[in-house]
């Protein structure tokens, strides 16, 4: 279908945007900064974030503000894509908006559970407000679960939330809600991919999302075993029912392992095993991110299809922002540069 290639201008544009990424040298300098101000100053003067940070006073900027600016930048770049797409592609490209909506609802629920609902307003991303399918500012006013339900009634999230209305005094079951939301998101997106693209492009985009699903499953199993000593039956209910490079049996054998270490061994036998460093599973999330990075970097380098390029680019950019946030946190916790470097993805040191 015509949507497979998409607009050539869009592909070129995305590649140009990627060209502004942080270089190895940039990362090397950033991990050596001693304060958030120095980091902000460096970003402002030496990287492509300069125009974004021009008005910002690096001596006064707060890390939350900085993170907000970075996330806003990602979103702005994402919004540029919409100039180039046709109506038939719209459903696919809105995937990030849906993902962000889900993140906001979950954030609100977490704060409700903690009794700090009024803090949601502070982290609310204003730049996203006018793109979501419900009013984010209304979400900020929500004080309890009933109000939340009422607000989200017109949306697809309502049916899921309804099932988990907590009884008086109980916490909202955010774990189950998160799983259900993710299932909703992935089922929707995989369906859209099925109907919009074909052939090689379809396979590549499916794999892009598929790898996220696979890694999410593996990571969840190991985490649940490690921190909650969960049993297979319980874990099974929390997994995403989609299998790409790991099949159902593989996941079963990981789940059936006696403990986290055993599960890790089983995970190393799977397709992703070659990228895991066999010694420690402490860093499973880091490895998962690395796999994502490697896959999408390769995909991005060789593709001429706009939707593939966009999907990969957004992944890579997200990883870059995560890296910067890791560095900021590393600076605040006064970690040595070598320590911080270990946390970064896609950076050689």
């Amino acid at each position, binding site marked *: 279908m015509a949507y497979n290639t998409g607009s050539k201008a869009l592909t070129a544009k995305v590649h140009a945007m990627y060209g502004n990424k942080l270089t190895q040298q940039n990362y090397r300098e950033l991990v050596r900064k001693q304060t958030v101000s120095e980091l902000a100053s460096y970003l402002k003067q030496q990287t492509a974030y300069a125009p974004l940070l021009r008005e910002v*006073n690096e001596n006064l900027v707060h890390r939350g503000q900085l993170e907000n600016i970075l996330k806003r930048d990602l979103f702005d770049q994402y919004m540029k894509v919409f100039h180039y797409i046709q109506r038939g592609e719209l459903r696919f490209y809105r995937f990030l908006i849906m993902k962000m909506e889900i993140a906001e609802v979950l954030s609100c629920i977490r704060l409700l559970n903690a009794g700090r609902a009024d803090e949601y307003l502070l982290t609310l991303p*204003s730049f996203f407000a006018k793109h979501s399918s419900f009013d984010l500012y209304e979400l900020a006013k929500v004080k309890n679960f009933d109000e939340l339900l009422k607000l989200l009634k017109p949306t697809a999230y309502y049916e899921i939330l309804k099932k988990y209305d907590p009884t008086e005094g109980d916490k909202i079951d955010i774990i189950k809600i998160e799983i259900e939301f993710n299932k909703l998101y992935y089922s929707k997106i995989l369906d859209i991919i099925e109907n919009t693209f074909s052939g090689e492009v379809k396979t590549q985009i499916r794999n892009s999302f598929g790898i996220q699903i696979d890694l999410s499953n593996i990571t969840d199993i190991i985490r649940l075993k490690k921190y909650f000593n969960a049993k297979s039956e319980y874990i099974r209910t929390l997994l995403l029912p989609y299998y790409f490079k790991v099949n159902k049996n593989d996941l079963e054998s990981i789940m059936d392992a006696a403990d986290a270490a055993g599960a890790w061994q089983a995970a190393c036998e799977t397709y992703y095993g070659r990228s895991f460093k066999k010694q420690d599973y402490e860093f499973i999330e880091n490895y998962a991110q690395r796999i994502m990075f490697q896959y999408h970097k390769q995909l991005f380098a060789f593709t001429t299809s706009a939707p593939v390029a966009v999907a990969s680019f957004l992944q890579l950019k997200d990883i870059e922002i995560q890296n910067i946030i890791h560095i900021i946190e590393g600076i605040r916790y006064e970690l040595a540069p070598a320590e911080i470097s270990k946390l970064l993805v896609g950076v050689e040191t």
Partner: protein
Amino acid sequence: MAIAKMKLVNIVGRLKNFDTVVRSCCLNGDFHPEQSSIALDDVEEFIPIEDFNPYTRTLQRAVDIGVHSDIMLHFSSFDKLNMSDVELEDYIEKTETEINVLGGKVRDLTHDIARLEQGLTQLSHIRSLKISLDDVFSCKFFHFRFGRLPKDSYPKLEICDDSESVFFFPLEEDKEYYWGFYVVLTDVCDKIDELFTSLYFERINILEEAHGTPDEAMTAIRRTLAEKNAVLVDAKAEVSKYWREHQEKFLTAYSKIKYLSDSFDLRKYASKCGDNFYVFGWVPESGAESFAKRFQKLPDVDCVLESSKEAENVTPPTHLINNKISKPFEMFTGMYGLPSYDEIDPTSFMAIAYTLFFGIMFGDLGQGLCIFLIGLFCKYRKMLGAMSGILVRIGISSAIFGFLYNSVFGYEGKLPITILPVHENKNVGILLIAAVALGVIIIIICMLLNITNAIRQKKFDKLWFDANGVAGLAFYVSILVAGGLLVGLQKNILSPLFIAFLIVLPLLLIFFKEPLMRLIERKKEIIPGSKPEFFMTAFFEVFEVLLSYMSNTISFMRVGAYILSHAGMMTAVFAIGKICGNGNIVAVIIGNIFVLALEGLVVGIQGIRLHFYEMFSRFYEGDGKPYEPAKIDY
């Protein structure tokens, strides 16, 4: 021309005389000191002198004063200065204190002015406020906070819980922020301040000096700024006045301290044994006797001269002495490396060859004279250093050859006679062959230079078995002569004897250079290591040697080629001139300037390349030690 002969000087004396020795003999002269440990490493009684330099601190303070006050530190004669060491130290300290006082005033004023200017900028963002700031800040029940709020945060203000207590008034907006203020009741101000901080509000502190409305305040502050600037000018003038009065004396004191400090530092070259010191170094042979005489006046000090041959484990430094004509080319040879003490100094050779090459390749009377004049101009104005001298010489050479070629500013045939008709099409072949012939001669000269070096250095293998030694020379000349006779005169002299002795034998000598040398030196294994490996390596080396003979010779064809390209470029210039309107003189002038610059640069670089790659690599090692006589660098 060439490398100055050096004599080794050994000085021994009583430690208490060390400073006198150093000061009267070793500074600002010809003495190149060496680390005494080199000569003494097997003599255990001698230990290096490691005294702490008492002048370092004072010197450092003096340098700091100079740097902070922007004074150019230079030598100022201190013969008339009559200060003891302690007096010098006190003087420097006094100067430091005085300068700090004056400088402090300037610093404080500058700081204050910067603060006021920043405050002025901040006020400019809120100037649309028409209320008096005094009223604002004297409120009992309200607090006013001025600053800027990110635009992202602004819509959140209406929604937050305390929205009824929050009053934010934007006064000015830019791309990312709203400048303005918010008002807060005193009893809830902590909570609201916290809220605004979480929304990334950046507070600015209004200057204490701001009174009235922002506009009025700005006017008043501007007046204050003007006054402070005037005071600053006065303060700076005071500093200048101080320096005008004291600079001379300060520089004299500085020079003396530097002299004392650096001469003390020479101790790092010396060793001591008990009560005595030992130091040695090099002096050019021409001045060696008079140098030694200086020590005769000093009691308890001895000076012994040795020749460089007697001092086996120390290499003498290389001091180039070239006559005026060759001197500018020292810059080029220096680029490759300084000649070793026992090598021939190639500077004179390069002077002749480079000038010749440039003249041949560039060959234009008018442009050559231009280069010559540019060189003279630069020399007069002391610009470009050695380069100006080179320009003068290559300019003359180009002019001469331009005269021979009958080429003036690209116009050919303007002169009555053409001595060397290089620009005629039928001569192209001859031209290129002549260029190659020139190359052959040059390469043979280089080989002879290498042989001479080998004789001087007494290196047997380099003399006989080297690719640029007798074997290589024999092979090269034989091939050329045989080939030349064959092609030119159809005469074949390639008899079996000829081939055996003049072609195969030299190649074998080159192939087996190392084993032969080991044989002669009566070493145990003639071919150390793996024999197949040796044969492989040697084979490729000989192959490389043969290839380089050929390529280096043909490389000289470029000398002829550049003559043609110069003519070609000028033809293009004239063609453009025609297009611009029948021999438009402006186009021709611009074209000439362009060709002069471009062709001049290209030919210059090609000349250097020929020298460094085709020529120097055959005989020049260039790992000499520079001659650095002890002197004080003020």
